[in-house]
């Protein structure tokens, strides 16, 4: 194998690595105009949408935990009961039932006071 081919290969590798590095450097933050538009939209609807679902049929908690405190299919103490929800299991990430144990900071208090 000639030295020329080897040099060309090294150059191609260097170009690919630099291109990947530039891509990461450029797309590591959301585009500012888009962020401003998203903020405008949220302002219109009063802050809605928070999870990995865009509709309410699968699991409202995964659309926005402000709308529901727990997944409707959650079976509480049954082992792996959370997986019974057809929605929760497939998401990239999910919000489990909102309880005081998940909260931190000054808000780590119970949402509902005992009567």
């Amino acid at each position, binding site marked *: *194998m000639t030295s020329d081919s080897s040099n060309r290969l090294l150059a191609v590798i260097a170009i690919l690595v630099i291109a990947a590095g530039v*891509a990461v450097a450029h797309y590591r933050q959301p585009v500012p105009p888009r962020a401003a538009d*998203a903020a405008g939209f949220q302002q219109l609807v009063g802050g809605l949408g928070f999870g990995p679902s865009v509709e309410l049929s699968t699991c409202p908690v995964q659309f926005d935990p402000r709308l529901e405190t727990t997944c409707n299919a959650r079976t509480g103490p049954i082992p792996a009961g959370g997986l019974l929800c057809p929605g929760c299991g497939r998401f990239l990430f999910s919000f489990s039932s909102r309880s005081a144990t998940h909260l931190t900071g000054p808000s780590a208090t119970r949402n509902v006071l005992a009567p």
Partner: protein
Amino acid sequence: MSSLLSIARTGSAAILLSPLRSSVTVMAVIAVLVPYLVGIGLVEGLRQESRIAIGAGTPAEKELLPDLYVAANQFGRRVPIPLELAEPIRKFDGVTRVIPRIVGRITLGKENVEAVLVGMPREELQRRGSSIQRLTRLIDGQLPRSQHGEAPQLVIGSGLARKLDNLQVGTVIPPIFRSGGGEKTPRITGIFQSEISPWQSQMILTTFESAAEIFDQRGLATDLLVFCRQGQPEAIRSRILQSLTGSSTKAAASHQPSVTSRTDLESLLPAGLGHREGVFNLLFVIAFAIGILVILVTSGFGRPERRREIGILKATGWQTDEILIRSLVESLLLGLVSAAVAILVALAWLKWFNGFWIAGIFLAGVETQPAIAVPYVLAAQPAGLAVLVACLLVTTGSAYSTWRTAVTPPAEAMR
């Protein structure tokens, strides 16, 4: 040192000596890395959108988003909150505004297309619309203005518009409700721009009055949006919980209030991502483990040639450690190429192909060809991890077979 560099340089030549093996190895690593990078890119993008949705990082004095969301519970489940509960909250010291909101699930059309109906008070929509610079960047058309008793005016999401036979602004759609006030024909006054937010996709925005008529629920709201003066939300939250729980009014007595603050939501975000890190990363640890086995198998491509090549090197005086260094450089270069190509392919998939097919797998309600601009962020951490994993995969996969051949007598290796 120079001899070491010379040996290292032969590593790049070794890639070209067995092109089939090199390309199969690169393909195998790319196949493992691309879904990982795309998935993490989507999660990071969604995380940024979620932060915007809860107003994280925006100055409190701007009053863009509510500080508290007040809802009602009965039997431990969420129920609509009576509008009359807004009045006592409005009187609390430190509360600047209380806005009722309706959020509900409806289905549209013959195919029962899922939609999220959001109702905000008419005056509030107009006030907010006028405060937003360049509203046309958000909506193609106008904000709804329908009053009580009038035909509902709707702004619909881009995904919904496409699913319902490419609805246009001005279109009248068949009645979607049959309330006590009789049938009314809703009119589309606007369509959300596809790139503003993923959650607009299936959303219908209308006035509070029209939403109440559509659901035939008067005097009720899904939640109350409470705006507070700076530094007051926690105190007001406690006051709402204490005063409404012990209230003597009929409405308050039968409902237990639930208050969600921005801090609660901010603390939920890392919890959700932590769950992802547990499940999603576990899946890819398994994928990476399988990847090592795949590379071990693919190392078999061009193996006789590789054995002869190592045998010749040994016969011409190369030591085992020199052959291993040569193989290591070859593996690292292949790993670098694989990771770089995987990052570029992941970016192309998310940016130019808008997460075609894969966004629908990871995000519920998103079609194969998404009607939204899929949110993504290519963070440096997963990209660095991809480079590390790629180099580790290729090195681990090929080191053993190289070492086995390198310790074999040259005559046997060349046979």
